[in-house]
């Protein structure tokens, strides 16, 4: 039986390859891409930028991966970012410390997540619609807090979360890497991961097997809200101001995209947070290509769309199956335990 280590490696191999290609594209456009130096007390270089700028999406996709694993989707994360940023900013502007502000922001994000969770798990509203409500209304709430302006602040502690460094390393990088590691450990060292997968694949069966699917569902949306809140605080801290109008705008789509590029199915079930995080970095590398290319901005979307399409086509299960068949071509394919996952999947059925 293959060890868990090699299984993980096999799982994330496609993402690693794609990330390598995306970085290579960057190098082709800008040969100095990998150059990192120490400037002004901080690590300075394009690679650091990719890690740093990818932080919000990376944070979002931790929660989003879990939500998607339960067959849900959370469209409200971008808005929750705005709300959390606004809350944190208004707290420090009113003179509270950065710790209190951070807590308040997390509380706000948690409440948003809870609201989504209750709508989905208790009222049984379809996730996409349930979270659409907050996606629309939440930005209004954020603007209500900031009264529509960019609420600037000077609190060093809060700013440090977004624009500061620890030992030269930008804080956002440390935050998302740490949180990612914690999340991965939490779901894989406990039974949470499996239980979440179970309710994502077949909620009814899981409920009958004694899983508390309702609480678990609420929890994933809660986590998603918390992650979004943290991302919101980072984004606000980065520009020293809460921009309720634009913070996190359309970022939910990037987060979902990252999860999908991470090879996770939107139909729920098996998931990998690590792969999603790689997906986030892939997206950020693509953004970096666009910025470094120096092409006029009218081409941004076309380039992004084409690159994403290429990635998805490469990753499509059907292509994977074809490759598998090519490798296994021959009159008597050897039984290969554990590779059944490469089969084309049509999971829709399983969950009804």
């Amino acid at each position: 039986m293959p060890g868990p280590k090699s299984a993980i490696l096999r799982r994330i191999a496609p993402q690693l390859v794609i990330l390598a290609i995306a970085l290579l594209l960057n190098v082709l456009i800008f040969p100095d891409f990998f150059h990192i130096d120490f400037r002004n007390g901080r690590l300075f270089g394009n690679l650091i930028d990719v890690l740093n700028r990818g932080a919000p999406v990376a944070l979002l996709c931790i929660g989003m991966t879990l939500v998607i694993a339960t067959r849900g989707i959370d469209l409200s994360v971008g808005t929750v970012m705005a709300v959390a940023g606004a809350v944190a900013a208004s707290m420090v502007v009113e003179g509270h410390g950065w710790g209190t502000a951070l807590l308040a922001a997390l509380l706000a994000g948690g409440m948003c997540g809870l609201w989504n969770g209750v709508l989905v798990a208790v009222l049984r509203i379809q996730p996409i619609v349930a979270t659409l409500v907050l996606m629309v209304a939440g930005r209004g709430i954020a603007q209500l807090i900031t009264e529509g302006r960019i609420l600037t602040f000077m609190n060093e502690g809060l700013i440090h979360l977004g624009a500061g460094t620890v030992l030269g390393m930008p804080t956002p990088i440390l935050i998302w890497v740490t949180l990612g590691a914690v999340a991965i450990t939490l779901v894989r060292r406990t039974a949470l991961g499996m239980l979440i997968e179970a309710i994502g694949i077949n909620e009814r069966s899981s409920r009958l097997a004694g899983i508390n699917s309702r609480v678990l569902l609420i929890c994933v949306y809660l986590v998603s809200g918390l992650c979004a809140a943290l991302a919101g605080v980072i984004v606000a801290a980065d520009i020293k101001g809460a921009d309720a109008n634009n913070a996190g705008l359309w970022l939910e789509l990037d987060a979902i995209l990252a999860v999908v590029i991470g090879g996770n199915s939107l139909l729920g079930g098996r998931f990998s947070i690590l792969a999603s995080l790689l997906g986030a970095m892939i997206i950020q590398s693509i953004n970096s290509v666009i910025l470094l290319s120096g092409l006029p901005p009218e081409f941004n979307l076309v380039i992004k769309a084409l690159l994403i399409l290429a990635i998805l086509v490469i990753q499509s299960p059907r292509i994977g199956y074809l490759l598998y068949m090519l490798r296994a071509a021959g009159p008597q394919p050897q039984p290969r335990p554990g590779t059944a996952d490469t089969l084309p999947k049509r999971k829709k059925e399983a969950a009804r």
Partner: protein
Amino acid sequence: MTDPVRPVLHARGISKFFPGTIALDDVELRLNPGEVHALLGENGAGKSTLIKCLTGAYQRDAGTLLLDGAPINPASTAASQKLGIGTVYQEVNLLPNLTVAENLFLGRQPLRGGFVSRRRMNAMARETLAGYGLKIDPTEPLTAYSVAVQQVVAIARAVDMSGKVLILDEPTASLDRDEVALLFSVIRQLKARGLAIVFITHFLDQVFEICDRATILRNGRVVGDCALAEVSRREVITMMLGRQLEARVHSKKTGTVGKPLVQVADLGRRGMIEPFSLDIHEGEVVGLAGLLGSGRTETANLIFGAVMPDQGRIRLRGTDITIRTPRDAVAHGFALCPEDRKSEGIVGDLSVRDNIILALQARQGWMRPIPRAKVTEIADRYVRALDIRLASLDTPIRLLSGGNQQKALLARWLATNPAFLILDEPTRGIDVGAHAEIIALIDQLRADGMALLVASSELEELVAYSTRVVVLRDRVQICELTGDQITPDTIVQAIADDPHPHAEPV
């Protein structure tokens, strides 16, 4: 084999590989016109896979397919339907969101001026179903009816579409006697019309009753092709299993009936099941008998908390307990192996290992993960004990054959070491070998002091393991049989007092 008649459908050298499995290996199947051909084999032998290869649901990896002597290559089920091959696949494969009539006529709706004529479609559906003794409203959604009704609709659809060949994959698994009899009379009519029929089932009685010839599969290979008049039951079983099936004398009801474990008083839910009371003792198997739709499944679901009762109470070992969700029930040591394994049992994309451990892990809570080594050990133990056929423990459970899925579900609940085990149709779709094993297992569990409640449509089976049988009719408990009263005849008698076996649904 020099058959004088040319076979309607002739499959030669069919092979099908799945990653990790050789599902079919050089299989030959000859279907003569006007014959009912049984396809037999253990769970996982490859029966369903074979018919999927014949009808274009899977693409075969090798072999030729001749229809009336001409080679065919159906690329999809639609193509095979056009060629006159009608099929009922294992598990009901109809669409829950469409009405009965829409399901019946999907893809071949009566048209008027290019548009679907619903009026005519509904009228035709009513007429078709009446031929099967079903007086139901075809404009209702399919899900308004029980699995049995759905199965009949699926059969009616396939029959309607089969110009030359009709393939039935375990159509009788969820039917009761009357419906089976009806189905057989339909099959005989079709046979007289010269149709070739493939019939898959695990009920050997039915095989010998209706079939002319049989092809027997084992591990994806043909091990026998014979006229049923010329072989004995015993020989067929031996071919299927590759060994003799020890005739087990059911060491009936040894061990002692202990204290009452679960006492149900006036439990009921309006519109679903009338209030009922039931005591189940340790070391006792209570059988639930009744016609389809008599409320057995509802009874089980109510006790397990899968459906919230609106009245009544449950006592466990003399103390009142509240069960609002299956989770509460599991916490109290209850277990329920549900009837509909596809939508209520398996978690398709999880591995067999995870599926087996699921209930135990859910009871332990997420904080206390069961170590991987222990999980593997438990799963291994039950795979061996129940003889579950699989490529590896990491195989997603949806890739297992139907019978093996059922066994894995049984393993899930046995792993929780329940005090009270509810089994709803535990042997549905299970092969003869495993059937005997499961009955032996139920006996064993009872002798070890577990309390069991088993709902089953197979009376012989109920008689074999029940210490007491509760008979339901129209969602009301009508009587209880004990000791020597428990024979298939008395049960049938108790049920048969019902004047309207096919009552219209409310």
